[in-house]
């Protein structure tokens, strides 16, 4: 049997409901007795744990390899600084390394003609795994002030259980972090809201993700009489997987860090329908 599917939950605009959709999809899959894993790839501000309240079993440091120059061997040729795409090495009297700008690609060590560069790990954050009841859980926590999120996101995804349906909770926007999260996913759910910002940023997200060739679908959260998102989806030939109505009780439940299904059983059917729409596209 091939690996269970992976589904990325992304958005353009932040605060549209990615985590709400991801954790309730996880709960819905449990009702179907499916093995499920929730992976919080929003490593700058992971929040799924607030709702799932997992027990963390393992915490591992994640680093990227950064160059250290052996001054005794260095001949100050400047090739390392020249090859760096990220301006992380300045060639002054000798090479000066700025580790916080380094993406860990290793090009500097490859081009050094005298082997003066060795790479040492620089910690960017931690990857944590555990369980929230029957839901397998993984998340990354990026160090405060640290800009290099994609290596940590890849480390979180490397902790995926291939037997379980994977739900990747993505950061918002259209950055490298989003691309790192969505890459390799079997399906991408884009959560948006019926506002000009929601539509504008959805359009950006679609433009970013379409070239990646993953099938896309849209969830309109806090849906109201404004139909511009739905009109856009029709024009762009994007399936609208669900329209979740604007409901103050949902916000109240979310604010308490609780799952909707416990207090609002009528919401269970909406996520059943959403999962059915996703599953038929896998």
């Amino acid at each position, binding site marked *: 049997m091939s690996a269970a599917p992976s589904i990325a939950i992304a958005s353009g605009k932040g605060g549209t409901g990615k985590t709400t959709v991801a954790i309730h999809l996880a709960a819905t899959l449990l009702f179907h007795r499916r093995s499920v894993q929730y992976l919080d790839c929003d490593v700058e501000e992971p929040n799924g744990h607030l709702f799932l309240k997992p027990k963390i079993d393992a915490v591992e440091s994640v680093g990227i390899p950064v160059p250290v120059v052996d001054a005794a061997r260095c001949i100050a040729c400047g090739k390392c*600084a020249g090859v760096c795409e*990220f301006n*992380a090495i*300045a060639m*002054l009297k000798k090479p*000066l390394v700025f580790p*916080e700008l380094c993406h860990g690609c290793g090009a500097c060590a490859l081009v050094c003609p005298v082997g003066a560069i060795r790479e040492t790990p620089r910690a960017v954050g931690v990857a944590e795994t555990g369980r929230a009841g029957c839901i397998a859980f993984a998340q990354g926590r990026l160090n405060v002030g640290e800009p290099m999120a994609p290596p940590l996101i890849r480390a979180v995804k490397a902790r995926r259980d291939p037997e379980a349906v994977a739900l990747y909770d993505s950061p918002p926007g259209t950055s490298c972090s989003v691309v790192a999260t969505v890459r390799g996913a079997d399906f991408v759910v884009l959560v948006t809201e019926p506002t000009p910002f929601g539509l504008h940023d959805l359009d950006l997200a679609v433009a970013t993700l379409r070239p990646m060739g993953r099938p896309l679908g849209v969830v309109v959260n806090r849906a109201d009489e404004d139909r511009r998102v739905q009109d856009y989806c029709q024009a762009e030939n994007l399936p609208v997987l669900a329209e979740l109505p604007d409901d103050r009780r949902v916000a109240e439940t979310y604010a308490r860090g609780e799952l909707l299904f416990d207090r609002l059983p009528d919401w269970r059917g909406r996520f059943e329908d959403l999962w059915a729409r996703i599953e038929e596209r896998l």
Partner: protein
Amino acid sequence: MKVVLTSSGQTLADPIDMHFGRAKVFILADTETGRAVAHDNAQNLHAAQGAGIQSAETVARLGAEAVVTGSVGPKAYKALQAAGIKIALVEAVCPGTEALRRFKDNELPVLDQPNGESHWV
């Protein structure tokens, strides 16, 4: 002595650019001969990251011993220090000619720590 002034234009008559890393133009001036040559900094001006570091590298390559500017961020400061380049500060925008005269008369304070904000990272 060779000194680089960060400038918003091509000549010493133009106002000083107060930013070091993303300065529009570097004017390399010789304090003895008065000769001044403009060097475009467009490449670093539009760099995604590390503009200050690259600008420091450019200044070092031009052979300057000092730089006259308005503000220098932490990484550019570190790079300029490593290259042994002195940083002299103007507190407000003025023409390059005036900044150069004040530099020659030792009227400009020398920076001994970064005074600019780090951008992005």
